[in-house]
């Protein structure tokens, strides 16, 4: 009996050692990215997976972009924005108008990356406008500002007849493919990672910790907040554009407060202030939602229940404030050790 348990322990040790090896091996990440890109081309090309699974993979990708970008505001900056669906709507509508009304059908697949970029840029401009009232408000107040913004976007779209009003835009070409989703996910995660590990990203963190102290330590909190909102809403717009071109039909009802809450659930499930957490949250949420589909309306009871349990036992989410080493820039991991080595070398040479 005791031998068996020690065997079990050894086995566990071995597993954790292997895991540590994988996680610290940074050369693996580019390899995985290339494999991922190749797979994203191969899967639809050779029909490796059925259509339904490919669709879910695309939704996972879109949700990763959404949760990572919202985490920037809600997790890293510690604000509470519920307007993410609004930025998504802006991106979705701009891109859908471009592909259905302006760009000829034959050109649309080739111009699709630009269309998505345009959706993101439009959302980013709106994000800039929302950022300005956010200089004056924090916490609950910002939640109300973003809620108001969401309502404005929704009722604006509902009342502009040219873009379909409450009926929305039907017949959008299905341009969102697995490779494009994969590429945009990589871009979003990479850019947000880069932002977080820069002086601006550290500024965002310091605003969460103590805004007055951060201002007094020379952080330009206006600039930092503006950048954070712009980047966050840019990627919400990108996700919206991808979403419109997979759903093939958008209406104001798609982008209501429920959509925002879904993204919030992903962020808080995965963990605030963590890119790995956002990815995990989006993955778990999307898959769980599909797995629980047979439960019918009960899944809408189960998901929030999961959230309640999570908030009680792990208020910061699965990965809360911790990061997977692959997402930390190499230099950041070794900066202190590098400095120590240099210092030792210097001490030796002087003595």
């Amino acid at each position, binding site marked *: 009996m005791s031998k068996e348990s020690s065997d079990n322990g050894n086995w566990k040790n071995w597993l954790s050692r292997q895991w540590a090896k994988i996680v610290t091996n940074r050369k693996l990440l580019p390899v995985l990215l290339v494999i991922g890109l190749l797979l994203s081309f191969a899967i639809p090309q050779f029909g490796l997976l059925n259509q339904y699974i490919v669709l879910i993979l695309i939704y996972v990708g879109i949700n990763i972009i959404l949760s990572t970008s919202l985490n920037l505001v809600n997790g890293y900056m510690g604000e509470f924005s519920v307007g993410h669906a609004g930025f998504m709507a802006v991106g979705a509508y701009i891109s859908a108008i471009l592909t259905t009304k302006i760009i000829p059908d034959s050109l649309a697949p080739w111009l699709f990356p630009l269309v998505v970029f345009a959706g993101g840029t439009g959302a980013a401009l709106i994000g800039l406008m929302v950022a300005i009232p956010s200089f004056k408000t924090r916490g609950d107040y910002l939640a109300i500002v973003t809620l108001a913004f969401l309502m404005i976007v929704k009722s604006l779209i509902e009342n502009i007849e040219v873009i379909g009003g409450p009926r929305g835009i039907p017949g959008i070409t299905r341009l969102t493919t697995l490779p494009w989703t994969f590429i945009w996910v990589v871009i979003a995660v990479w850019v947000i990672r880069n932002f977080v590990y820069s002086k601006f990203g550290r500024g965002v963190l310091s605003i969460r910790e103590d805004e007055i102290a951060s201002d*007094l330590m020379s952080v330009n909190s206006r600039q930092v907040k503006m950048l954070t909102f712009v980047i966050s809403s840019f990627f919400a717009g990108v996700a919206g554009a991808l979403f419109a071109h997979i759903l093939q039909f958008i209406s104001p009802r798609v982008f209501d407060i429920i959509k925002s809450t879904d993204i919030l659930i992903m962020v808080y499930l995965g963990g605030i202030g963590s890119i790995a957490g956002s990815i995990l949250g989006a993955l778990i949420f999307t898959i769980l939602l599909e797995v629980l589909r047979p439960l019918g309306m009960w899944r809408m009871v189960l998901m929030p229940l999961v959230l309640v349990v999570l908030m009680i036992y792990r208020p910061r989410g699965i990965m809360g404030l911790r990061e997977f080493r692959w997402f930390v820039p190499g230099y950041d991991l070794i900066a202190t050790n590098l400095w120590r080595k240099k210092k030792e070398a210097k001490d030796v040479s002087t003595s």
Partner: protein
Amino acid sequence: MFLQAKGVTHYFGGLCAVSDFNLNLKPNELIGIIGPNGAGKTTIFNLITGVYKATKGSITIDGIELVGKTPNQITGLGIARTFQNIRLFKDLTVLDNVRIANYSQSKYNPIEALFHTGRYDGEERRIANHAMDLLAVFKLQDYADEASKNLPYGLQRRLEIARALATHPKILLLDEPAAGMNPNEIGQLMEFIGWIRKEFGLTVILIEHQMRLVMGICERIKVLDFGATLAEGLPVEIQNNPKVMEAYLGEGGDL
């Protein structure tokens, strides 16, 4: 004149927190501001650093008006401070605390930050090394990767000073640096303040309750009471000023 405050007055609603405060600070001076609780000492720091906007009066550094500027602009002009109740970025590492204070010293733009190109790499290395050098000066280098809330109290106080110095200030405002310290530690702190002042070529304004510290190192002392300046002068003059004794100890007291 270096830092100058002229007729600075501040109201909280109808309450006058600071009235007609004047200050002429010369380079490399170390002056102390003392006064009973609620005398308006910390308010003066908040007015200088831009946390509050003075209701009346003007504060200038090298002739540049500070009233109306944001705190980060004022910090950029060379004024840094610590806080009465430590305000570190608790969940962040010691290194990050110091690196954040390098915000205006890091010369790269958002585009370079988003794509980690251009000046980003070189600047990040320079900043990390500078921050570590600064931590080493304060003997905090071994805690660099530790969350700052895990440091013992004394080290947190030291880290706060290190963080303030990372903004490259000309003037350092210390708000009750000796709070919660025993006499032995206060002795060390006195030496320490004198040393960083020389090492970094600083002008220091000190708010303190500990008479030993104030009388020991300050070259000039201002006494505040209910927002008004009660007395100003050399430590010896202040010690023998009957008005000050009355404010602190009541009539007939002895400091």
